[in-house]
């Protein structure tokens, strides 16, 4: 017995529409509430936490698509991957923009100092830049043009996800339970790809042993 899922064209359109609606609608609602001071004692902190955790959620979701596709032998899941990845960057963008606009309130010198001096911000910034590169090369045109380099560039999603996890656990004061849950989820998702992730290591090992 095998489970099979098959989406019709319209179901895919509908699901994609739902992703757009949720991702855009939620952000709009939260920013509207924050702007009108209806988001608790410290709307700046609330917005930073919301955008940060949402970006991570979406990143993990995008990494769930190909294991799902394999599990259900249904390649259609891959059709949601780019959209989820783009929204992960959308929230990461809001996260950094909110940090600069509302936390630092446009003190650019402070931003530079924070990126250099605060390891968890350095790490977050590095992840952000990777996600930016992936976003800019997410079009089919870029994919065609870059051919094989496209895949190697987009494999950087794995180090980016690890950096995001590190940024998260490093940023909390002492309540590491939730970051640990996220790290566990990421570990599971990377576990599905262990062959792929270990391939370069194995290749090097083989090269080393064969040169004896």
């Amino acid at each position, binding site marked *: 017995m095998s489970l099979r899922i098959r989406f019709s064209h319209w179901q895919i359109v509908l699901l994609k529409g739902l992703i757009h609606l949720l991702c855009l609608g939620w952000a709009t609602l939260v920013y509207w509430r924050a702007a009108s*001071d209806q988001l608790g004692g410290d*709307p*700046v902190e609330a917005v930073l936490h*919301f955008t940060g955790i*949402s970006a991570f*959620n979406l990143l993990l979701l995008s990494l769930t698509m190909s294991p799902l596709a394999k599990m259900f032998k249904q390649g259609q899941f891959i059709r949601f991957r780019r959209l989820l990845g783009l929204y992960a960057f959308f929230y990461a963008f809001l996260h950094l923009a909110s940090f600069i606009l*509302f936390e630092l309130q446009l003190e650019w010198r402070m931003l530079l100092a924070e990126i250099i001096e605060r390891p968890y911000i350095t790490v977050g910034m590095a992840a952000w830049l990777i996600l930016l590169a992936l976003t800019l090369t997410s079009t089919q045109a870029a994919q065609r043009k870059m051919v094989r380099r496209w895949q190697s560039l987009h494999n950087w999603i794995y180090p980016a996800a690890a950096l995001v996890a590190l940024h998260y656990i490093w940023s909390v004061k002492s309540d590491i339970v*939730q970051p640990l849950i996220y790290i566990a989820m990421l570990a599971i998702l990377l576990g599905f790809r262990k062959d792929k992730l270990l391939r370069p290591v194995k290749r090097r090992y083989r090269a080393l042993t064969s040169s004896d």
Partner: protein
Amino acid sequence: MRIKLTQPSELKESQVTDEAIYRDRRRLLKQMGFMGAGALLASAQARAINLFGEDKPDFQTRSLEYQAANQTEQVLTPETKVISHNNFYEFGTDKTDPRDNAQDFQVQPWKLRIDGLVEQPINLDYDDLFKAAPLEERIYRLRCVEAWSMVIPWVGFELATLLKKAKPLSSARYVAFETLYDPKQMPGQNNPFMGGGIDYPYVEGLRLDEAMHPLTILSVGLYGKTLPPQNGAPIRLVVPWKYGFKSIKSIVRIRLTDKQPPTTWNQLAANEYGFYANVNPNVDHPRWSQARERRITKGGLFADNRIDTQLFNGYDEVAPLYSGMDLKRHY
């Protein structure tokens, strides 16, 4: 979708949060934290149940009689923010957790004991807390180590008044404070998923001269009423020139000692939190800057509220306590 009709007269109050919306935000925040993450649900379950539950009635506070403070030019942090944005890990680590989880906290009966190196140990019951000394209002800045701050009208009395009644022995050099340990009421205390990995009960300490300083108060109220549980009912310490975590909440014991007592955050991360924890813009937290702070007042995301942090939180009169000390080393 809820549509709320308002009277024209209500429009002027645009800065004031409608209570219904205000309560709803908790549900909203919980939902969005777990947005889309179907895999996440281990820790979400407890919260998810809450989505459908009614909020419990708020803890009942009552008005206090006290000597009002002089007018201040400082803009006060609105009461709704003072009582909804709290770090009190005994009730959970999110800022809104204490308000959400502490409303049925029992403050009666309460016992506060002052002992250790004193001639005259003192026991105070709940009612005694409000009669230990004449109550007065103190409007203080509270600077959190997380680089945000509030301006809060406390009601209380100087700690020195109480300590003098207990008559400290000449050997007493430090004062140790302890929060109630009652995991039944404070679920974070024996639940590692809620309590932030702290070894409870929460303890704090001051040097005796710091404790005797007239700025140091025990607070039993804010905004003219008794303290709500999330702010440390029924009695808490307020030391306005130190980071907020020094101002220990819901105190059951004050002990005079001859040795520097252990303090909770220092035990947890000694390189990040010192015993003194004086507000100091020149000594950064290892992971973030302490040079500036966000002052929480009225206004949302676009409130221009970033200000310079001042040494000793602007309470220069305490500087003599630390003359000759290297504040970078004794952070």
